[in-house]
């Protein structure tokens, strides 16, 4: 199969428009931990030059709004309707509608058939331009271009890396509770372009993206037993990861993409193993009679956090990637499971069950600073966006209706994820480009 042409991002600062200074530092600053209490109003004008310009603007606006940190203004209130990306706007007019930030852009169909999108972010009250970029790619890639624009705006104004140019792999659910059908699926993080990768004739669970390749790992369960697969997204080819006599489950890639950690059960006892994907050499890294599962690598690949009930109830433990130095890191009351190390290494997200309630929470890798971000009948299975600021998870009601939800790490923004149908087991991709 051919692949799409790679997006070529020519990141080029625009020459100043006759202004005396180079692009100034933004006077707009969004505090990611507090900004959701007063989202920044932002005017996003329809990008000119092509009908796809308005679509791009819509995707950008939806991304920024979904973060909880921005409030895109109603275009019907805009004081200027035709905005040229190469001209300075009339700042006083935009001040009058209370728009501190203004995003303007244009779409150009280049001679070689590629699409180029130029945009500028204006700081209305300072009267200057914090950001001006252009992106070029094949025309079919207008959505990734829009997500990269949203990422650039988010990053400039918050100081944090964006997370909009990503996909999510998950399980799409259907059918009655006693005979639930589960299909492997992927989508853009804004819900667009859903793609169903298996047909539901066998159950699938807990998929993960490879950090380095267009590949997914997941567990498949049939009456004949469980298998872990590698699924190549581009070719559709599936490969079984080894053969084991008992249950296998909970597969995840190492940060360098060269290994998969997983659980395997033998004679009723579940331990954690790590397999090298090239040599297929498999190392057993726990050998306790306890349940040891849900491993997650630290971003440097040197440690694993995992779930074990070796102390009598499910708790979180950290160890070296070779299994050495196991030590407990969860200390609160309740049962701790599904640990996931954040991409920046600073936090571990987890599911906590206490009484009749479930929570998504975070703690530092040494176990300190535990904060619970959500509460419901059944929240579980957090996954980190690549900027370590947003978590997606499953929320299931009494009666068994499971949906995808997101929460930001400040706990202020909890909302359904943009996929409108029943689903579970989400896992976030790295930034795509």
């Amino acid at each position, binding site marked *: 199969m051919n692949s799409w042409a790679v997006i070529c991002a020519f990141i080029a600062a625009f020459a100043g428009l006759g202004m005396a200074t180079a692009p100034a530092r933004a006077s707009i600053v969004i505090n990611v931990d507090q900004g959701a209490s007063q989202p920044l109003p932002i005017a996003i004008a329809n990008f000119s030059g092509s009908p796809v310009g308005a*679509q791009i603007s819509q995707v950008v606006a939806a991304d920024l709004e979904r973060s909880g940190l921005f409030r895109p203004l109603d275009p019907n209130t805009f004081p200027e309707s035709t905005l040229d990306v190469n001209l300075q706007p009339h700042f006083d007019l935009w001040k009058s509608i209370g728009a501190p930030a203004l995003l303007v852009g244009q779409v150009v169909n280049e001679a070689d058939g590629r699409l180029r999108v130029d945009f500028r972010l204006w700081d209305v009250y300072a009267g200057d331009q914090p950001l001006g970029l252009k992106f070029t790619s094949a025309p079919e*890639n207008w959505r990734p271009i829009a997500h990269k624009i949203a990422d650039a705006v988010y990053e400039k104004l918050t100081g944090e890396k964006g997370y909009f140019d990503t996909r999510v792999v998950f399980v*799409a659910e259907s059918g009655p*509770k*006693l005979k639930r059908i589960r*299909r492997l699926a992927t989508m853009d993080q804004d819900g667009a372009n859903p793609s169903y990768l298996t047909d539901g004739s066998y159950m699938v669970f807990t998929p993960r993206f490879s950090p380095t390749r267009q590949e997914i790992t997941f567990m498949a369960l049939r009456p004949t037993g469980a298998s872990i697969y590698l699924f190549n997204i581009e070719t559709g080819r599936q490969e079984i990861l080894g053969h084991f006599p008992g249950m296998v489950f909970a597969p995840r890639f190492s940060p360098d993409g060269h290994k998969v950690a997983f659980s395997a059960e033998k004679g009723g006892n579940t331990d954690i193993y790590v397999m090298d994907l090239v040599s297929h050499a498999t190392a057993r890294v726990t050998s306790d009679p306890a349940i040891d599962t*849900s491993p997650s690598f630290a971003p440097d690949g040197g440690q694993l956090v995992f779930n074990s009930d070796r102390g009598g109830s499910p708790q979180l433990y950290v160890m070296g990637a070779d299994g050495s130095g196991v030590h407990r890191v969860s200390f609160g009351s309740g049962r701790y499971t599904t640990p996931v190390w954040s991409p920046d290494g600073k936090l571990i997200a987890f599911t906590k069950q206490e009484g009749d309630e479930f929570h998504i929470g975070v703690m530092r890798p040494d176990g300190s600073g535990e904060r619970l971000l959500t509460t419901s009948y059944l929240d579980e299975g957090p996954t980190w966006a690549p900027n370590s600021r947003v978590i997606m998870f499953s929320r299931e009601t009494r009666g068994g209706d499971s949906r995808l939800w997101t929460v930001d790490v400040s706990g202020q923004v909890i909302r359904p994820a943009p996929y409108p149908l029943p689903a579970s087991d989400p896992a976030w991709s790295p930034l795509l480009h």
Partner: protein
Amino acid sequence: MNVSMRNTVKLVVVVLAAAAFAGCASHPKLAGPAPTGYGPHHEGGYGPPPSSDEVSQGEEPAATGPGSARDFVINAGDLVYFDFDSYGLRDDARQVLDAQAGWLRRYPQVRVRIEGNCDERGTREYNFALGARRADSIRQYLVGRGIEGARIETISYGKERPIDPGDDDAALAKNRNGHTVITGGAR
């Protein structure tokens, strides 16, 4: 990171029950029909399993005589139950398993699969492990009662195959079970 984006597979246009998605991308071929969620009447091809009335014509009704799967279920019992977060065998479980062992000794060609199940008040992966413990607990007990290990396979369904859709304590208790299923050799 430069990662090649998406396939140039000729796109199968995906009509979704949810919002329409404008534009572009091509993706791996859609496998199966578009999803329609749980559906109150099980629409979209995800119908309920056929009732016994709908067994296709020409099939024999299930055998019920000695040595049949039905005989096993009625006269030995195919379900045992566990306490919350436990894989220990209660007295009531041992009674049923003794009957299973007796039955399996009487019909030595029969093979079984022990399915370990959990209630929904736990997370997915931990419950696969707990279900495996339950299935193995039962297997070990039957082996101890003289059934050859080669006749018994195990699997865990975690919390994924409840037998009671409710969420009250009685339903949860029913879903914490080990289910013995005949896989071959029955009359």
